[in-house]
């Protein structure tokens, strides 16, 4: 499971996305929200990086930056195209961007709002093919049929509208549309959190099958830690715009090095009533990214915080075996992982 040997598909370097905040009638600029504040990670070919964190931590903004939904304030996002070599998404012109957006696709959280209710399944799944590859007629139809079969929908669904489908089936349609241009990377933003428990498993299995079949890479953005653990090879934990811990999934979950990760793991309600629960209840709430705490953003809620944490922002540093952590006291702390909490 060494990641150093794997070929990178996407490299994000020091990505920053700062939104200006205005106030008053003239929208005078009064500050910035540092939604993403200097994050770096790599997704290898055929692997899954899980991005976890609570609402407002910047995980969705990160996903949008990768598709240039937002133009990042600073940093580089390199897409390593097998034919064209590395392409910087942040600097790409219109034509390059149009190309990259075929190779990088997105699956959204809510399958009810991400499908146009006035288009049939054939139009929805076929639109990217029509626009980008000029397919039409029987060729288009044949490809749409193929895609529907791949995601486990019946071909008879072709001429129906989204309202005729359940949430899980709609998410399959969204996935079929994302697959239509044979992407290399799929940014999946909370793809199963709107689905029922029994449907979640079907969708997760489908995503894993597709990964094996097409060698896809995923950036899997989610707040549900058990889902992320199940699907990810590597995990990055975000807190107020920064990655506080990153590494192979089993390491981050078994031996977390950051107090936030440890608390997050212990907060998950576990489906086993008999276990003795050593839960770490964090006080307070996630800070407002417009006004983050000084130093380490986690220090007001951290029980190990010392004076240094209030002044000095910890940097993400290697902690052995591909594990990285941003904590001043990572070496001296012994934190409970999922086995102990």
């Amino acid at each position: 499971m060494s990641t150093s040997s794997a070929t990178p598909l996407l490299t994000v370097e020091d990505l920053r996305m700062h939104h200006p905040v205005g106030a008053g009638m003239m929208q005078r600029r009064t500050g910035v929200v540092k939604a993403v504040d200097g994050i770096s990670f790599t997704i290898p070919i055929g692997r899954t990086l899980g991005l976890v964190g609570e609402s407002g931590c910047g995980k969705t903004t990160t996903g949008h930056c990768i598709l240039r939904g937002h133009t990042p304030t600073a940093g580089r996002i390199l897409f390593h195209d097998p034919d064209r070599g590395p392409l910087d998404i942040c600097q790409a012109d219109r034509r390059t961007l149009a190309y990259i957006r075929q190779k990088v696709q997105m699956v959204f959280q809510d399958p009810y709002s991400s499908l146009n209710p006035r288009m049939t399944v054939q139009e929805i799944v076929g639109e990217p093919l029509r626009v980008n590859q000029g397919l039409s007629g029987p060729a288009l139809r044949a490809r749409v049929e193929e895609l529907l079969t791949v995601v486990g929908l019946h071909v008879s669904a072709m001429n129906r509208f989204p309202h005729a489908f359940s949430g899980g089936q709609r998410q399959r349609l969204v996935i079929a549309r994302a697959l239509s241009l044979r992407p290399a990377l799929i940014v999946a933003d909370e793809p199963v959190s709107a689905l029922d428990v029994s449907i979640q498993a079907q969708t997760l299995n489908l995503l894993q099958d597709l990964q094996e079949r097409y060698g896809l890479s995923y950036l899997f953005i989610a707040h549900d830690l058990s889902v992320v653990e199940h699907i990810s090879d590597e995990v990055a934990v975000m807190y107020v715009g920064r990655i506080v811990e990153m590494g192979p999934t089993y390491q981050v979950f078994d031996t977390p090095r950051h107090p936030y990760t440890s608390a997050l793991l212990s907060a998950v309600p576990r489906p086993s009533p008999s276990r003795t629960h050593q839960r770490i209840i964090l006080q307070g709430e996630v800070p407002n990214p417009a006004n983050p705490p000084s130093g380490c953003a986690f220090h007001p809620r951290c029980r190990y915080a010392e004076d240094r944490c209030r002044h000095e922002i910890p940097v993400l540093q290697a902690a052995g075996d591909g594990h990285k952590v941003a904590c001043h006291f990572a070496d001296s702390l012994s934190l409970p992982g999922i086995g102990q909490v």
Partner: protein
Amino acid sequence: MSAHDASSLLSVEDLHVHFHTEQGTVQAVNGVSFTVGRGQTLGVLGESGCGKSVTGFSLLRLIRPPGRIERGRIVYHGLDTELDLVQEPSGSALLRQVRGGEIAMIFQEPMTSLDPVYTAGNQVLEAINYHLDVSQAAAWDMAVTMLGKVGLPEPQRIMHTYPHQLSGGMRQRVMIAIALACHPQLLIADEPTTALDVTTEAQILELLQELQADLQMAILFITHDLGVIAEMAQEVIVMYLGEIVERTDIESLFAEPLHPYTRALLESIPRLGTRDGRRLQAIEGIVPSPADIPRGCTFHPRCPDFMPGLCDVHAPTPQTLTDGRQVQCFLYDDQRPGVRNLQS
């Protein structure tokens, strides 16, 4: 289990709630019976469309047309006399006293369940003034105390804040303060932490447990989350398409689930710390529309233990096992052919 023993606070008997729509009758709740004990937490587990929220709303008689409670009894034992809430006229003084005073409810969406044009204090005071005969000053003090009790910092200041100034977790705390202001004996909590972040969820669950011990109230905890239910409930009913398919204590639910649906549900969730296999055991198919309920056992089209000629023809009745657990499945019905003993 008699519905009228001294420890029971609320007993629901054969409750049917139907929605008469233009597309036909939706049988949202179809013959549900259960009992909530005093000071106990009963978990209601199910996926969307199973009727768990409708059950919660009908306990407060908050079903709006085209929905209607068709038949059944909802007997509240918290007052001096037994009160069948179904029989009460919809505007009666007694019903209003029970609603909010004896039985209170909190909802999933703390964003939409508070009124944005009133302060948090105002909304807590409203509940107190409605139910209790106290002076303005006393009501104010009670509201401040309540806001403090739900763990809000500086309750005096919170009294003057509007919902938009509060975070999701704080709004849910205000909702809990409103619900508990009049010290109800039963709290209906309908997915109260689903919209919250995991660290906030942990805070709210802990708060509910503390308040329950403090105020000696019963909780009907409605959720789809197996982890949350393990944390909160002593007894659980599992619902599927408007029916209770299993009733069990919380340990047995996880140690030895009976109904094929419950078993499938438990196998389909990814669990922290288990990395044995790469695949989840997904349940086949989708939850049928409540307007188009399958014949026979409603779970038969998705059931791994489906017995043709039996499950798709006859509807199973609830079977009570020797240990008091209840399950509605032919696998446990020894009057029927084809029974398998899963206990061994």
